[in-house]
């Protein structure tokens, strides 16, 4: 088997074990640390699957969130979660585990024979051919890619997104959109083709921080200092 695939399976097992411990342990601090371990596993998976942007973001966000959560946990007085264990959540967790194992087995092991009618691992739905027809500027003749094994959508970007100065000028003279010419494909998508999405995401973060301030601000605490039950 592919060594990358083996590594991915090992990481998947590690992450499953970590999330199970995080759910089941009584100690809040160990639970938070297990969540952090799952996050780092996710980051490694992103890196192995060829998404360094996502891996970087995941790792730094995970570090920051872990620091904040550990601070919150160690400043609380009660360190353990003492509610009685319910049978239903455990059963649901086991059921979800079984479904996940079945899907992983169906995808990875029987994929060569087309088992479970799933696409082969590493063969994205939005392949080069589909992407090239979407990204081709209006007016440019229909692209006919060679019928090779579709591997990534990066080829389509190389064809339409990166052009030399003369080609770009010719495109602008024909009133076509200019190629972004960024060597990082992800940023070209996030901040040029789909910049609206990124504006919405930035708005979400802004509103979330305003919400945190509204909850934690001093004025509200002073006004309700007498009767607020904040825990």
């Amino acid at each position: 088997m592919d060594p990358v695939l083996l590594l991915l399976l090992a990481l998947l097992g590690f992450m499953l074990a970590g999330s199970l411990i995080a759910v089941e342990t009584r100690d809040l601090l160990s639970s938070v640390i297990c969540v952090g371990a799952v996050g780092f596993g996710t980051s490694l998976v992103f890196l192995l699957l060829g998404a360094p942007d996502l891996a970087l973001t995941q790792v730094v966000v995970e570090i920051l969130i872990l620091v904040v959560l550990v601070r919150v946990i160690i400043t609380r007085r009660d360190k353990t979660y003492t509610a009685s264990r319910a049978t239903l959540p455990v059963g649901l967790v086991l059921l979800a585990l079984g479904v996940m194992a079945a899907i992983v087995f169906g995808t990875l092991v029987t994929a060569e024979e087309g088992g479970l009618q799933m696409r082969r691992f590493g063969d994205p739905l939005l392949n080069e051919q589909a992407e090239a027809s979407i990204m081709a500027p209006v007016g440019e003749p229909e692209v006919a890619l060679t019928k090779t094994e579709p591997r990534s959508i990066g080829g389509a970007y190389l064809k339409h997104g990166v052009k030399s100065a003369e080609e770009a000028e010719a495109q602008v003279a024909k009133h076509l959109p200019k190629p972004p010419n960024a060597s990082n494909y992800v940023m070209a998508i996030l901040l040029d083709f789909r910049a609206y999405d990124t504006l919405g995401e930035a708005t979400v973060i802004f509103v979330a921080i305003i919400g945190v301030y509204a909850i934690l601000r001093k004025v509200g605490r002073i006004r309700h200092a007498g009767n607020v039950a904040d825990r």
Partner: protein
Amino acid sequence: MQGMSPIVKNITRLVAGFIALYGAYTVLYGHVTPGGGFSGGVVLASGLVLVVLAFGVGLEQSVLSDAAAKLGDSLGALLFLAVAFLGYGAGMFFVNLLPSGETGRLASAGTIPISNIAIGIKVGAGLLSLFVALAVFRRYRAEQRSDTGMEA
């Protein structure tokens, strides 16, 4: 929240500059290498959080104040919106109308680097203000009711 031990403080003095440098690199070169405004901003915020954790909130109140973080958050958002409205210069929202330049150079890709810087400032300042809000307001609460045994 007092600062930590002298060992932590000295190591923070050594490391914080490099963390900030890496964050700035990730933001500025987002359109050339993996990275970008969001991850670079989080790296910057983590460096500042390290400084706040090591030296205590006293430093935070003099240098990295709450108001400055709020200001950075709002300015980053406004700068990104300004980039979006700049597109009206070419007729539409979010049109990349600056020259594209040569692929792989720092000065390329039109408005993408400017958007990256805006998002970097916004995310860095926003996450820092979040942490400072948790730290400072917790301390305030602990002062209010010091009999509950909570430390700041």
